[in-house]
């Protein structure tokens, strides 16, 4: 492995200080499952690793009925996957965690690392955006709470400023009658990056859709919402005609590219298929 210097700060202030002083070659090490690969494959020029494992307060997973789910920056995908009640309350997020890489990787990879890596194909981002998650940060002089939908500015880029640290994710509690699903599409079932990922989060009352959020992964520079498709669903009975119209609309709202995993045309087509499928799967699983 290429050489770098390893740092082990004890609190957020020290982390932030190190990141600012060491500059461009310094990166936060949480799970390391992406970063260590990027170092080995020389995709990123890393001179300093700032390990945040000794920083207190970053490892909890909590749920409260009023405030919803909250988990810290050191929470691994495996830990969150196993959190009691997660599968029932957030089946879309749980589904995304279950298909993220392998058990071994999930035992190291942190969810916030998956998010901060800002890949448009990251599995955890679509369900969290569909569920209205927000990210909490720390920086000298006061942190911020940023809606996850506004967090990304491009592939690998986010609104985090130098020295700012993502510390936790919060996800509002599911409303009664909420229905959710995430569908990942790839060439194989395991150890795969999503070719397309679609998450839906629907609110229903007496069979009528009162709120809809659709998040599309791997079909744009960032994970996208499909607001016009959502508008078609809201007020409908989620009948076949409404769902088909929304799926068609979602196809128009995405901006896929062609790459080694798939062509843009195929991705767009799959957005339609998966949006339809995700809505029907969500309606089968009562949240």
């Amino acid at each position, binding site marked *: 492995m290429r*050489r770098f*210097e*390893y740092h082990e700060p004890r609190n957020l202030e020290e982390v932030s200080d190190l990141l600012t002083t060491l500059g461009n070659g310094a990166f936060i090490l949480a799970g390391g*499952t992406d970063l*260590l690969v990027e170092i080995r494959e020389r995709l990123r020029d890393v001179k300093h690793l700032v390990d945040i494992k000794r920083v207190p307060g970053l490892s909890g997973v909590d749920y409260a009925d009023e405030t919803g789910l909250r988990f810290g920056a050191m929470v691994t995908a495996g830990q969150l996957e196993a959190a009691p009640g997660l599968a029932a309350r957030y089946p879309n997020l749980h589904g995304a965690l279950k298909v993220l890489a*392998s*058990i071994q990787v999930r035992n190291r990879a942190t969810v916030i690392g998956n998010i901060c890596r800002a890949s448009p194909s990251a599995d955890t981002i679509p369900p969290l955006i569909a569920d209205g998650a927000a990210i909490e940060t720390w920086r000298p002089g006061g942190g911020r709470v940023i809606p996850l939908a506004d967090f990304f500015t491009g592939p690998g880029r986010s609104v985090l400023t130098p020295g700012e640290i993502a510390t936790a994710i919060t996800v509002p509690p599911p409303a009664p009658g909420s229905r959710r699903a995430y569908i990942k599409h790839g060439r194989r079932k395991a*150890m795969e990056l999503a070719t397309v990922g679609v998450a839906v989060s629907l609110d229903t009352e007496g069979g009528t859709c009162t709120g809809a959020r659709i998040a599309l992964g791997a079909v744009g520079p960032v994970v996208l919402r499909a607001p016009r498709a959502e508008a078609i669903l809201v007020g409908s009975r989620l009948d076949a005609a409404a769902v088909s119209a929304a799926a068609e609309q979602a196809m128009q709202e995405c901006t896929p590219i062609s790459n080694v995993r798939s062509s843009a045309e195929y991705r767009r087509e799959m957005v339609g298929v998966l949006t339809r499928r995700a809505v029907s799967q969500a309606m089968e699983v009562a949240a």
Partner: protein
Amino acid sequence: MKKTLLDLTVNGESRSFAVEGHRSLLDALREEGGLTGTKKGCDVGDCGACTVIVNGQPVNACLMLAIEAQGAEITTVEGLQASPDELHPLQEAFMEHGASQCGFCTPGILIMAKCLLDENPLPTDEEIRFGLSGNICRCTGYTKIFDAIRSAGKRMAQQGVEA
């Protein structure tokens, strides 16, 4: 470059290695530790050949820095058997069923299968598949591996082996 003294427990024994900050746990186990049972297939987290148990959880040793394992308890494939002349039921079953060809994936699969059977000695095929989805075997086609895991599981369930 500066070396850090790493104290850890490997297969029940206290060990200390001096490692540089950029050294992977996999390299440290194989080179400083002399434990070459754990294999380096891809070195980027894709193949599972380097799977070891760290503080009770299976992880890819190639995706972890040695220094991150400070104070940890580690089990490698060398630690599976209870004593030099008593193999783990999984090891017996892999031999009986011929579940290994070139053998490169075998240590990682044994470790992963142990983690699976410890929780669930009688897994369904779907559960075995899910458990092994991070372990790639390019030789066997997995049939014999599944046979071996099922039969070891049965044996462990009968004997109540706390592996």
